[in-house]
């Protein structure tokens, strides 16, 4: 027993190393498989508060740009108002619209923490469970789409942005209905470009065409994602690899909208039922 004790204390550094390395390795692996189902990330209350305090100071520096983008968006929305369109028919009677139901509602949120230089990038926003945000909601901004909600705490939420190696977002090319999935990573780590995969070879794709959301997933149809900058035909492959310049500028993200698809539940249950029946 005494010898064992001497042995342990003589090489204590090594044993301590093993203990702590195993702990951190277990944390790392668990964290990967349970999709961050843990308190130790930026949607944690303390860390979220710290980020938002610093962000309060930082937001003054970009007040001008934020104002400009909000004003621009206001103008855009104003143009869509009924009274700014020229009506060439006379409205005779009011119709209570029972055909169109609200499918999407939006929750505005401020970005309190942002990263674009990591291998997997996340942003944190200052809205959470209490404001009605749940996991797997889509997040957009005035210029394009941002990502998917990954973790929620009471007042904060972490978002997996497009700049994440596991983000796959269904996108289609404007004009044609060809769709594919938008991925990032795997040799492309520029924060303003992404790759559109799985578009079949026979589709004719030109540079400068717009890429929009397909409406199959969490996002409403036809939201802008970016423009095509390069199309590569790979030998022996049936699919095109299309480089897309993202319209969202992730480095200056300030305000985002969380998309609440009111019919997600219905679509999900239907789809899981049909896969079960196969």
């Amino acid at each position: 027993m005494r010898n064992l004790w001497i042995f342990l204390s003589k090489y204590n550094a090594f044993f301590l190393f093993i203990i702590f390395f195993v702990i951190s390795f277990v944390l790392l692996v668990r964290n990967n498989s349970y999709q961050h189902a843990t308190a130790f990330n930026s949607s944690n209350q303390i860390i979220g508060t710290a980020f938002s305090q610093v962000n309060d100071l930082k937001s003054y520096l970009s007040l001008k740009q934020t104002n400009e983008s909000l004003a621009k968006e206001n103008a855009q929305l104003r143009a869509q108002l009924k009274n700014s369109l020229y009506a060439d028919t006379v409205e005779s009677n009011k119709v209570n619209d029972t055909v169109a139901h609200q499918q999407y509602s939006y929750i505005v949120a401020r970005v309190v923490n942002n990263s674009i230089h990591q291998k997997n990038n996340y942003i944190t926003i200052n809205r959470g469970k209490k404001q009605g945000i749940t996991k797997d909601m889509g997040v957009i901004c005035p210029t394009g789409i941002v990502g998917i909600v990954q973790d929620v705490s009471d007042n904060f939420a972490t978002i997996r942005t497009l700049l994440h190696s596991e983000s796959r977002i269904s996108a289609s090319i404007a004009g044609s209905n060809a769709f594919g999935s938008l991925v990032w990573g795997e040799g492309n780590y520029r924060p303003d470009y992404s790759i559109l995969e799985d578009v079949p070879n026979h589709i004719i794709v030109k540079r400068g065409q717009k890429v929009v959301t397909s409406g199959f997933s969490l996002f409403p149809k036809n939201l802008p994602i970016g423009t095509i900058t390069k199309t590569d035909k790979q030998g022996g492959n049936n699919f095109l690899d299309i480089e897309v310049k993202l319209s969202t500028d992730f480095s200056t993200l300030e305000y985002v909208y969380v998309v609440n698809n009111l019919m997600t539940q219905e679509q999900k249950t239907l789809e899981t039922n049909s896969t079960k029946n196969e």
Partner: protein
Amino acid sequence: MSRVIIITLLRFFLLLFIQVFLLKNFGYYNLATPFLYILFILLLPFNTPNWLLFVLAFLTGLTVDAFYDTLGVNAAACTVLALVRVLFISVTVQRDGFDNEPEPSLGIMGFRWFFFYAVILTLVHHTTLFFLETFHFDEIQYTLMRIVLSSVPTILLMLVYEYIFYRKKER
């Protein structure tokens, strides 16, 4: 003794603040991302007991992980860093010199020693960090490039920090 503890605590908060609020936003296309916070572990006093060294390294790593959303990666890298620190110091520093050399800083140990110390420990830390983050050997060239390109700004920032808080040893 209490003075050392206060200085160490202040250094911890300062380096952590720089890391998560400033350096997290720096970087050259994911290739060069400095990790200055490891300087905290590098500068712990020589007479820190091993268990305390490992606990502090682990906790520092965990704190940075919490801000980076990479649970376990930095903690593991810091644990490896602590082991290499113990080995490096036991090889290069004589035991009897401990009383008048409280901490391995640039002013006390001299440029040559500190530079080697920083380079080796940074490389070890970054190697562990980036390989754990990628978790496979597919893009080994890319990972190696990240390790080397990130070490350069890390070491430069360490030297800058050391010269800002320069304290010459009265020997």
